[in-house]
C-alpha cells in the first residue's frame, strides 16, 4: 500500500486518489481550433516511462493537484496545489 501526498490533507492511502491526466494539457479555446489540436487535447498522451507530471484528485477533499511521480519506481517527487502552472 502506498501513501500519496495530498497538498491539503497530507499523506493518505493511494486508494483515495484518482488519476486525472497529463499536467499542462490545456483545453483549446475558440471557434476555429483545428481538428488535430482537438484530437491531441482529447486523446494524445505523453505516457512517459520515468518522471511524469500529472493531475490527480484526492477524492476525499475533492481537490485537484499536480503530482510529479516516477512511473517505474512509483516514487513521488513532488506534490503541489493546482495554480497557474497547470498551463506550463
Amino acid at each position, binding site marked *: 500500500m502506498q501513501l500519496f501526498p495530498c497538498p491539503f490533507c497530507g499523506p493518505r492511502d493511494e486508494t483515495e486518489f484518482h488519476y486525472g491526466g497529463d499536467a499542462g494539457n490545456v483545453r483549446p479555446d475558440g471557434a476555429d481550433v483545428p481538428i488535430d489540436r482537438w484530437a491531441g487535447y482529447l486523446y*494524445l498522451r505523453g*505516457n512517459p516511462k520515468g518522471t511524469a507530471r500529472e493531475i490527480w484528485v484526492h477524492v476525499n477533499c475533492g481537490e485537484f493537484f499536480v503530482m510529479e511521480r516516477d512511473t*517505474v519506481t*512509483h516514487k513521488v517527487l513532488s506534490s503541489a496545489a493546482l495554480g497557474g502552472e497547470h498551463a506550463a
Partner: protein
Amino acid sequence: MTRRYSALSLFKEGLAGQTGWKQAWRSPEPKPPYDAIVIGGGGHGLATAYYLAKNHNITRVAVLEKGWIGGGNTGRNTTVVRSNYYYPESVDLYGLAHRLYEGLSKDLNYNVMLSQRGMVNLCHSTAEMEIGARTVNAMQINGIDAELFSPEDVRRVAPIYNFSPDARFPVFGGIWQGRAGTARHDAVAWGYARAASRLGVDIIQNCEITDFIIEGGRCRGVQTTRGAIRADRIGMAVAGHSSVLAAKAGFRLPINSYALQACVSEPVKPILDTVVLSPGTGVYVSQSDKGEIVIGGGLDRIPSYAQRGNLPTLETVIAGLLEMFPIFGQLKLMRQWAGIVDVVPDSSPIIGPSPLPNLFLNCGWGTGGFKAIPAGGTLLANLLATGKHNDISRPFDLDRFATGRLIDEAAGSGIAH
C-alpha cells in the same frame, strides 16, 4: 533445420531418450539490411513475421526483441481466447483471430493447446440481463456463436458458483460463447517463432531498439544495442512500451500504460470446466490444464511501467473471486505477476501507418490482445507488404481519433478500465 513434429518423431525420441530434439528456432547474428523489421518479439511481432513470409513471400525479415520472445504480455496473460465483441468492426477482427486460432496448431505444426471449453459472462441483475440479451443479439447478427444463458444453464457449466439465496452477486443468467476457451500462451509465441524461423525469418533476442534512423523524413531503420539495422518497412508491436518508442520516432499516441495483474493458485483436481467472467466483481477465472486456478481482474489504478502490480487491486480481485466461489477460500496462491498493457480510450487496438512514414503500428491491445494475435500478425504483415490497409484493419487506423469514428469496446473488452 528444425524437424517436423509428428507422432513418429515423438515415438523415435522416446526410444532415443529425448536426446535428439534440436533448437526450435535459429539465433542468427543480425544482418545490416532487411526487407522488413518487426520490433517486439511478443505474439503479435512473431505472428507478423510469420505471415510476412507465409502470405507475402517476404522472408528477409528480422524480429528484434529487447529481452526474450514471449517475455512481455504474451507470456504473462491469462490465456483466454474468445470473440464475443459488440461492434461489427471488432467482430471482423477478433472473429478472424478466432478462426485462425482454430487451425493454428496444424498450421504451425506446434500444439498451442487451444481448449474450447466455453466462456460465460455473468449477469447479476435484470438490468444486466437486458444488456446481456442485447449483446447476444449483436453477436448473432454479426455471425458469432452466442447464447443467452439462464441461471440453470450457468449452474450446469459452473456448479461451484455461489448460488445460495444470500449470495452478494446472484446469477440472473449470462452470455455464453461455446467456441471460447484458452490456449497455451508460451506455445503461441514459440510456435510462431519456430514456424517463422523455418521460413527464413531471423529472430534476434537481447536486441533493444534505442532509436530510429530517420532520413528524408522517412524511417529507414533502427539503432539497437546490437548496432544499426536498416529496412524500409518497419512494424512495431511492443505493447505497453508503444509510447516510449513513439517518443523516439517523434509522435505521441492515445495510450496510457498500466499494470495488469494476474495470479494462480496451487494446482487442484479438475473443478471448473469453463471460463467465468463477472463484470460485476471485475474478476474472471479458469482452471489451467495443470490444475491451477488462473485469476485475472481489472487494471491497476495508476498509470505505471512497474511490472509488478499493486496490492489494493489484488485485494479487490481476490475479494470478488471469493464472493463468486467461496470454495476457493481454501486455496493457496502460488504466484502473482503483472504485465504493462497499452490502454486506448475506446478499448480498441491501433493498427495502421504511424505519423512517421515507413513505420507501422500494431498496439493498443490493452488487456485483451492475446486472443487477437493471429489477426494482429496477419494485418500488420499486410500493411508492411502492401503499405495499405485492408477492410479489416482500416477502422483501427490512428486517424479515428481525429475523425471521431471510435470503436468503443469498453463493454466487449470485458474487464474494467
